């Protein structure tokens, strides 16, 4: 059983996630949470959240975040996250009085993933599901290629990096981009909620980013007029080159 402080963190994260989803999915509970002895998962309900434009179904959005408690038990670090944008279901269309000529595809539109300890892919990346004939032509060339390019011309095999460990996109970024591009229905005050939560996400990311490279952060603060000195009895933290250089 986790202690009260971690439980509060988990609950706050779940509520924040639900609030972001509610801006486009309507009031109610859009997520379920499981808590283990060392990890937790927050995920949307099975079919994800229905996104509408002018009250017509347009897309579905699924999200999940799997976290692990830090070794000192003070905070939860995200180990994996995945945000997936999908076509609506046949049931969504019929429920809205729409009769699709073709059954909606089961293939996602786009997927935005993060892996804290990635193998062979960028830590934060986006997979766009599409086909491009030029990629098919590249496949015919004889030069060595990554496994991803060998799997092209499906672009979802390619993992485009999106900001590394610290500057990855948030759920709020994805939701607002979809609202703008697809003119999705959004709750009154929804944008303000997304903006506020995005700012909080970036503040949370900034603190560990400073920890990755404190000397650069201190120089930047001095340029802004702050007096920044390290207490002489504090051992200088190591620059986290692994985090700064990681794809």
């Amino acid at each position: 059983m986790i202690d009260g402080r971690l439980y509060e963190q988990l609950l706050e994260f779940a509520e924040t996630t639900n609030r972001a989803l509610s801006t486009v999915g309507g009031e109610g509970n859009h997520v379920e949470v499981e808590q283990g002895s060392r990890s937790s998962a927050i995920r949307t309900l099975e079919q994800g959240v229905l996104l509408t434009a002018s009250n017509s179904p347009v897309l579905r959005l699924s999200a999940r975040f799997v976290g692990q408690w830090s070794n000192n038990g003070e905070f939860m670090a995200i180990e994996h996250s995945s945000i997936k944008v999908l076509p609506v279901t046949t049931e969504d269309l019929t429920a809205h009085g729409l009769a699709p000529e073709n059954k909606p595809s089961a293939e996602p539109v786009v997927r935005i993933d993060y892996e804290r300890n990635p193998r062979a892919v960028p830590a934060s990346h986006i997979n766009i599901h599409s086909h491009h004939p030029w990629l098919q032509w590249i496949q015919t060339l004889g030069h060595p290629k990554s496994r991803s390019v060998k799997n092209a011309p499906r672009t979802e095999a390619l993992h485009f990096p999106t900001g590394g460990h610290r500057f990855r996109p948030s759920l709020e970024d994805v939701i607002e981009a979809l609202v703008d591009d697809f003119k999705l229905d959004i709750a009154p005050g929804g944008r303000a909620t997304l903006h506020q939560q995005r700012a909080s996400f970036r503040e949370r990311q900034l603190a560990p980013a400073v920890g990755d490279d404190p000397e650069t952060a201190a120089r930047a603060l001095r340029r802004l007029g702050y007096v920044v000195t390290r207490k002489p009895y504090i051992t200088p933290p190591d620059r986290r080159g692994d985090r700064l250089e990681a794809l």
Partner: protein
Amino acid sequence: MTTIPITTVTVDDLRTEKSRLEERAGMAFEDLVEAADQGTLSREQVDILFQLESVVEMLRIEE
């Protein structure tokens, strides 16, 4: 304010949930992943796989 329920799970609970989801999908997790790469899953299987991935990710940490 919506109250989000938090369910406490053990490794055994996660294993049971994995089996239940695999049974519903009609395929083991590894086969679902491979079929997803090939784009041959039904929509229901796609949604189940998304849930299953979080269960497997938790199991890897918990075990």
